[in-house]
Each structure stands twice: as structure tokens, then as C-alpha cells.
């Protein structure tokens, strides 16, 4: 499958207060963005258990986004995003050891006010993952495990 | 041409199968000891923090995890260029001696003894540890089990777990012992010395008193002269934990004596396409195929070879047993494969005595048991004497101590060639004119069982099984007859 006919499947774990509302606003404001990102809402990125990201890749995601409120201060829960920036770098290292390119995993901050930034991220990240081609962990495992 | 597969070879830790090919007369044309697995520890060790290797490599073998634990820890010491506090070193040897008692007793009573106590032709259903217990009586049986257990208890006390211990790490051990523990160990130590003597007595009564066995031990199929390898201390006495590796030639003269980091100058390994296990041999003598003698680099590393390679035992009672051993079998070196069982019991006694020595060492309760490594890690080799042969761990790390390369030459691997040769000789001796019986095949198994081969170790493999049957085919490969191994 090459770049042209490959549509990346991307899962986004967004915090309810910042990035989820940014994505909401982006939609309401009719900002242009590709349909490749499926959003899963969590109350805070601090809720994003690394297992969610692994599960997404396991099920067949070609890329994963984790995005919440800007630290410091923006977090609705004060320091939920602190836990995120403590966990994600380690998760990133883990994924790379698994052979999953770092370009397939994005984590960062987009406040409720940054709808355009969200739309831009969706556009850029989708292209970035499209470039890499499919990951498709599940199928690869089944076909090549032996 | 006919092919017989003995598979699984039972009562060996780990896994192997024997393919015997018969010529048209039904005599053995060749026999192959096939090791059908590999695990690749040497590969996936790469990228691991080196200090974790003493906790990773024991999974090469759950029978002798302590051997890998120690060899690995010693390799780590070398990687970090760290000197252990004396007590740290003694606690490691104490653990290791206790393990030796447990392991040797395990092998003798669970794997080897059935062939002698019950006889090679006893019904398979009884030819096992439980059978032995039934024969010698539950009371004695549980006594033996207890002795075995004591060894394990000490291992657990010092290493956390009895199987796959964890106490050793670069620079020493994680736990010191207090007076109470020391006293307990000493007490058990004395019991185990008694156990050692008991076992030698048992061997004497059951085997040496039985002319049939003695003949079998001395018989040609079970006699194979070759090079002998073993770890020795500065006085060339048998040592399991530390020292240099000594090799003597088939006539018993020292061939080479090397320090761990020199192993590559002495050893090479041969790859064959029909088995996952490699054949180590003496580089200088060279690989001449599966043959023994002065001109073949094939050597063995077993209790027998350790006794052959050493000038004696470092403890008094074991030294006595050692001398009696050679008296009875007509001087050094001894080439009788089955005598390995006896040699093993001599070592068992030595280990028990060593436990008492160490437990009564004034330093043993010193709390200082670890040195924090400060040097930049690079490369190191660790060697111990595993019950089933000289065990070599060799690591190369980056400056953060992450393993870049790992090489392992493991106990039984050393003996792969000798085992194959013994098996072939035994097969040739017992299989004639295509006449095959279960008892005969069990004798073939006995040929290697004496090596106590641990294929789990040897191949760093995880064993598996294929159907056991003896298929007799004609030259065109048509199936003439199928014999089951345990026909009644």
C-alpha cells in the first residue's frame, strides 16, 4: 500500500477541558481537517494509561495522539498534565524499542483556545503517518508471527 | 538402511533425541544425538543492563540456575572491574556449595539411581524416584528428600529463591547473614556431610557390590578416553566457584591451564546442520569429527573429568573418597563413563564439607558484603564449574553497562561430543541384527545419563518432544516394523 491509497487510522486521546474542546471548536468553526483521527475523550490526560496507547496500536492504529492542557497552570486539575509529561517520554522510549517509529506517536498540549492549532496538528500528523505507511500491528502479528 | 529414533530420552533435564541408523544387516551404522532446540539467550541478552544478567541467564536452566547466576555475577564483576569484599565472595561460594549438594543428590537419586537401584530392565512405571522410594522404604526415602531439601533451604536463605536465586549482583551479594542463620547453616552442613557419606555408602552397597554393574562400568561401550576439563584452585584441588580451568590429556598430563578471560584461546565451537547444539572442542588439537583420543579436540567436563583434571579434593573426607575412587578403578585418569556417578558423589561430599568450612568461617557474618562498582564497565568473562560442566559467561557492554555482545559456553555443551560418541558406542554394542528391546535402548540412554546432560542448559533451549518409536526401514525406506520403546 503506498501513500496515495493509504488512509491512516489515528486514535486521539484528548482531555475533556482543553484539547477536546479545541477539537470541538475546530469542528464547530468548520476548520478543515482530514477525517483520519478518531477521538476518545478522557477527563484529563493524566487519565491516559499507557495501556490505552499500546492497545490502540495493537488494534491497528497507524498513529496515536495524546493531547491536553498546557503545563503549568492550564490543567483543570492543576497538575494532571504533569503526570502526562512524566509518563509519555518513557512510553515513547518503550514504543521505539518495540520498533514503532516516534513519528507515529504524538503527545503535547493544545488549549481550548487553540482550535486552529488542533486542526493543523490533525493535518500534519495525518500526512506524517501517511508518509510512514501502515503499521497495522494486528495483521502483521497474525501473518508474520511464525 | 533403517532408522531408530529414541525420543524423548527420558530422565534428563532438558531434551534430546537419538537417531540410530541400522545397515542392511541391522547393525548400527551411525547414531546421532540430536538437540532439537535453541533459545538464543546470546541474542536477546543484547540491550539488557548487564547487572540484570545474573537474574536473566538462570532461565537458561532451572536445574542449575545457581551456576548461571554465579557465572553471570562473576562476569559482571569483571565487566565492572570490581573487587568483592571477602565475605561477599564467601557467601556466594556458600550458596553455591549448598546448591551442589542439592543438585548432585537430585541427579543421583531422581535420574541415575533408578537404573542401578531398580536395574535397567525394571518396569518403566517404577523406574523413577517414586519407585526408589517404594523400594528403599518411605522413611529412608523422605530422609533423602529432606537432605536434598536442606541444600535448597540454604540456597533460598542466601539467594531469596531456591530455584532462580537473585542474591548475587556486580560487586557482591545483596544480603548478609546473621549469627542465627549461620548457626542454622552449620547445623545443616553437618547433616549434609553425613548425607554425603550415606550416599557413597549406598553407591558402594548397591553398585560396587554388584558384579554385573561393575562389569558394565568397566565394559568397553562405557569406556572412552579423551581430554578432561575442570576448574581447580591454586593447589590444583577441585573447586566449583573460583580458580583456573585445567585440561588434562587422555593420559592425565596437564594439557593447558587457563584463566577465564583466556577461554577463546583454548576453545572453539563447531556447528552441525542436523542439530541446534554446537560442539565445543580444544582449538589447538582441532576438530576431527565425533572421535576421541589424543588427536581429537573432543573433551568432557563432568564430575569424572573434574576429578581427572585435579590433583585431589580440598576437604579431608572428600580427599579420602577421592583416593578410594582411583584405587578401585585403577588409577588416574579414569575413562569409565558410568564412574561419573561415583565421582559425583565424591563431589557431593566435598560440597557438604565446604558448607561447614564456610559456615564456621569467622568472617562469614560480616555485614560488608558488597562493593559499589565505580569503574566504567566494558568486558568480562565469568567461569564457574557447573555440575554438568565448565560454564563460561562472556559479556561486552557499552559505557553505561548495557550488554552489546554475549557469548555462553554452557555445562552440557562441553559434553555434547562425548555424549554422542558414548551413545554411538553403546548403540553399536547393544543393538545387533536389528534386535532392539526396551532394555537395550535404556542402556543406550544410560550411556549419556551418566553425563547428567542438561539439554535445557546445553542448547539454551526450551525442550520439546517428538514421537518415540523405533522405525525399522529397508534400504528403500519402506517401513518394515515399528517397535515401541517400552514394549512389555
Amino acid at each position: 500500500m503506498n501513500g496515495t491509497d493509504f488512509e491512516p487510522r489515528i486514535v486521539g486521546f484528548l482531555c475533556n477541558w482543553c484539547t477536546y474542546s479545541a477539537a470541538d471548536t475546530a469542528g464547530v468553526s468548520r476548520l478543515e481537517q482530514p477525517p483520519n483521527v478518531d477521538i476518545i475523550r478522557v477527563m484529563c490526560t493524566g487519565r491516559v494509561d499507557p495501556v490505552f496507547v499500546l492497545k490502540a496500536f495493537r488494534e491497528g492504529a497507524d498513529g496515536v495522539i495524546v493531547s491536553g492542557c498546557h503545563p503549568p497552570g492550564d490543567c483543570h486539575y492543576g497538575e494532571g498534565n504533569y503526570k502526562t509529561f512524566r509518563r509519555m517520554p518513557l512510553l515513547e522510549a518503550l514504543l521505539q524499542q518495540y520498533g514503532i517509529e516516534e513519528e507515529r506517536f504524538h503527545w503535547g498540549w493544545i488549549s481550548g483556545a487553540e482550535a486552529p492549532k488542533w486542526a493543523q496538528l490533525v493535518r500534519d500528523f495525518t500526512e506524517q503517518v501517511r508518509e510512514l505507511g501502515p503499521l497495522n500491528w494486528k495483521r502483521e502479528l497474525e501473518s508474520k508471527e511464525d | 538402511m533403517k532408522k531408530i529414533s529414541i525420543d524423548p530420552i527420558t530422565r534428563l533435564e532438558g531434551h534430546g533425541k537419538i537417531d540410530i541408523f541400522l545397515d542392511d544387516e541391522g547393525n548400527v551404522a551411525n547414531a546421532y544425538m540430536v538437540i532439537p532446540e535453541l533459545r538464543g539467550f546470546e541474542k536477546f541478552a543484547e540491550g539488557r543492563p548487564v547487572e540484570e544478567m545474573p537474574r536473566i541467564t538462570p532461565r537458561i536452566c532451572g536445574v542449575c540456575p545457581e551456576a548461571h547466576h554465579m557465572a553471570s555475577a562473576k562476569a559482571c564483576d569483571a565487566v565492572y572491574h570490581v573487587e568483592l569484599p571477602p565475605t561477599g565472595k564467601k557467601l556466594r561460594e556458600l550458596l553455591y556449595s549448598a546448591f551442589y549438594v542439592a543438585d548432585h543428590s537430585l541427579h543421583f537419586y531422581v535420574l541415575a539411581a533408578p537404573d542401578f537401584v531398580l536395574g535397567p530392565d525394571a518396569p518403566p512405571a517404577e523406574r523413577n524416584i517414586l519407585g526408589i522410594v517404594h523400594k528403599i522404604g518411605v522413611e529412608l526415602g523422605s530422609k533423602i528428600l529432606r537432605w536434598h531439601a536442606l541444600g535448597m533451604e540454604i540456597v533460598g536463605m542466601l539467594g531469596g529463591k531456591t530455584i532462580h536465586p537473585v542474591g548475587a549482583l556486580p560487586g557482591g551479594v545483596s544480603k548478609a547473614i546473621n549469627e542465627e542463620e549461620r548457626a542454622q547453616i552449620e547445623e545443616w552442613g553437618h547433616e549434609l556431610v553425613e548425607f554425603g557419606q550415606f550416599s557413597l555408602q549406598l553407591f558402594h552397597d548397591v553398585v560396587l557390590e554388584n558384579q554385573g554393574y561393575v562389569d558394565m562400568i568397566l565394559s568397553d561401550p562405557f569406556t572412552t578416553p579423551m581430554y578432561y576439563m575442570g576448574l581447580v584452585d591454586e593447589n590444583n584441588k577441585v573447586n566449583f566457584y573460583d580458580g583456573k580451568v585445567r585440561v588434562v590429556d587422555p593420559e592425565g598430563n596437564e594439557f593447558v591451564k587457563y584463566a577465564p578471560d583466556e577461554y577463546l584461546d583454548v576453545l572453539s565451537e563447531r556447528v552441525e546442520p542436523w542439530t541446534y547444539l554446537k560442539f565445543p572442542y580444544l582449538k589447538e588439537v582441532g576438530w576431527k569429527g565425533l572421535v576421541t583420543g589424543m588427536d581429537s579436540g573432543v573433551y568432557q567436563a563432568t564430575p569424572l573429568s573434574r576429578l581427572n583434571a585435579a590433583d585431589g579434593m580440598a576437604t579431608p573426607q572428600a580427599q579420602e573418597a577421592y583416593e578410594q575412587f582411583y584405587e578401585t578403578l585403577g588409577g588416574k585418569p579414569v575413562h569409565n563413563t558410568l564412574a561419573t556417578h561415583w565421582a559425583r558423589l565424591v563431589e557431593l561430599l566435598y560440597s557438604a564439607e565446604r558448607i561447614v568450612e564456610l559456615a564456621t568461617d569467622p568472617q562469614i557474618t560480616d555485614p560488608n558484603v558488597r562493593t559499589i562498582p565505580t569503574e566504567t564497565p566494558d568486558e568480562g568473562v565469568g567461569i564457574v564449574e557447573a555440575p554438568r560442566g565448565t560454564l563460561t559467561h562472556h559479556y561486552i557492554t557499552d559505557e553505561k553497562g548495557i550488554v552489546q555482545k554475549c557469548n555462553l559456553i554452557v555445562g552440557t555443551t562441553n559434553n555434547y561430543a562425548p555424549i554422542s560418541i558414548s551413545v554411538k558406542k553403546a548403540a553399536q554394542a547393544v543393538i545387533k541384527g536389528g534386535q532392539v528391546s526396551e532394555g537395550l535402548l535404556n542402556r543406550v540412554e544410560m550411556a549419556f545419563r551418566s553425563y547428567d546432560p542438561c539439554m535445557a542448559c546445553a542448547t539454551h533451549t526450551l525442550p520439546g518432544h517428538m514421537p518415540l518409536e523405533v522405525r525399522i526401514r529397508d534400504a528403500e525406506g519402506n517401513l518394515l516394523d515399528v517397535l515401541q520403546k517400552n514394549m512389555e
Partner: protein
Amino acid sequence: MTDNGKLKLGLYWAASCGGCEIAIVELREKILDLDAAADILFWPCAMDFKYKDVEAMPDGHMDVVLFNGAIRTSENEEMAHLLRKKSKVLVAFGSCAHEGCIPGLANLYTRQAVFERAYLETPSTENPDGILPQTSYQVPEGEIEIPYFYNTVKTLGQVEDVDYFVPGCPPQAPQIWAVVEAILGGNLPPKGSVVGANEKTVCDECKYNREEKHVKKFYRPHEIIPEDRCLFDQGIICAGPATRGGCGALCTNVGMPCRGCYGPAPNVVDQGAALLSAVASVVDADTEDEAAHIVGEIVDPVGTFYRFGLPASLLHRTKLE
């Protein structure tokens, strides 16, 4: 049950180190009780019974088969299928069968890489012709077959339907006996349960005192001599909090951190992820840079967090090209 009313028991090892077998021997005098209560129909390690006998058995003949070892080769898998057929209750016994164990770390590499290292690269290997083992090879006298070596280590549960799981590397004797008694008493939990382990984690059995965690620096075990309190609190990564109890916290008892052989806690999907999350969460850093620096000191995440469970983890292995 056999006519003599004894349980028909089978013990088998696939890709394992043999430690689980020794663990049975570790039952010590209880092994005699086992002998009294059960007829062992199959135990290659210690008894002369053959595959042929198993094949000859009617389906479901054995009441219980304790299967240890992972699935590394075609042969391991064949045995898994056969023993499933011949047993009423198939138990994945020990870490390898349960979740792949340490040899499962081979899933960080491929068959090719393993072969090249073992048979070509290793400095002691003398192999100028680059010979590699062949699943089928013609020796002068005939053909010799050896099993096919898979790319990926699998757990028993991944190739066969398993009734119960007994965790541990190896399972500890008291737990084994508890399971045996449960089997004999016929009071087994629902199918698919983990037996011979606790609901709570290793911390529950650990001797050390624990406090709130604020980790400024992670230490590797050889880097410090820890104080007599929770190792994790002191920055030594310990899998105890993310690992089922039942072992008796033997490793921390001698001052070494847990590495997780008893597998994930009951509600945890992926043990490594759970441990990773906990470890990172207690990092005492309030800026992204500081946090990245502190967790950056952790070497070998996969080998650390999935020491025993890589094949059973969500991703099973590294990416295959």
C-alpha cells in the same frame, strides 16, 4: 479418576528451563502425598513414559495436565494440541506457559537474528562455511528432522484453550500444593482463572515499609546499597507493585527488587504498561525537561517492564519487517 480412585495426572514441559519440574520436586515430602493421591501418567523429566502412550490414550483421559514451558517451536505447539485433546483440565503451569517468561525476550529479535548470533557471530564459534541448522537434513545414513523454530515465542494460551493458569518462575511449592489440593478437592474457580496466586500484589507480602513516593533519581540495583525500606521509594525500579502476590516476596526479602514473574495483577491488562505508568507517575519533576531527564535515565524499558511477560503483552514482540 482411575479405577483406584486416584487422580490421573500428566506433567509436561514445552519450551522451559526445567525449573518448573524442579519446583515439583521442591514439594519435597509432599511429593509422596502427591504420589499417594494421583497416578502420574506422563512426566518425561522424571519418568519413562512416552509420547506414544499419550497418543494412545482416549480423549480427555487425563484429569489434569500441568503444562509448563512456552511455545517456541512447531513441536511445542503440536504437543499443546495433543495434550489439550487428552486432558479434561489443561493448566498453564509457570511463567513460560502463562506469559512467556524471560526467554520471551527473544521476541525483541527475529529467528534470523538469533541464528546468526548463535551460529555465526559468537567469538568461540568456528563456522567458516556458515552452516545453519536445517529442519530436515540428509546425513549419509539418512534424514534427520528437527522442529521448526518460530519467529515469536508464544504462550500456551495463545495456541490452545487453557483452563487455568499457575503463575511464577517457578511457581512456589506452597502455591503448587494449594493448587493440587484444590484439584483433588475438586473446588476449582471458574475456567480461565489464575490459581496458585494472590489477588493482591507483591507489596502486600513485602517486608519493607512504604511511604509516599517522590523519585528524583532512579538507581540500578548495583548502584546503591539500599536502606531497609521500600526499594521503589528509594528509586530502585521494583515490579512488586505491578505483580501478583503469592511468591512470598522472596526477592525483596533478600534486598533485591521484584522483576514481576508472577505476572499482572487481576485487573491489569498489560503488566509492563501498568508498571511503566506507576514508575513514571512518581517522578518528582514539575517541568517537562526535568521529567524527561529523570525517566531518560531508565535503561531498557521493554526488558525492565516486560521481563517476564513480553509474549503475553499487548504487542507480543517488536515490529516485524
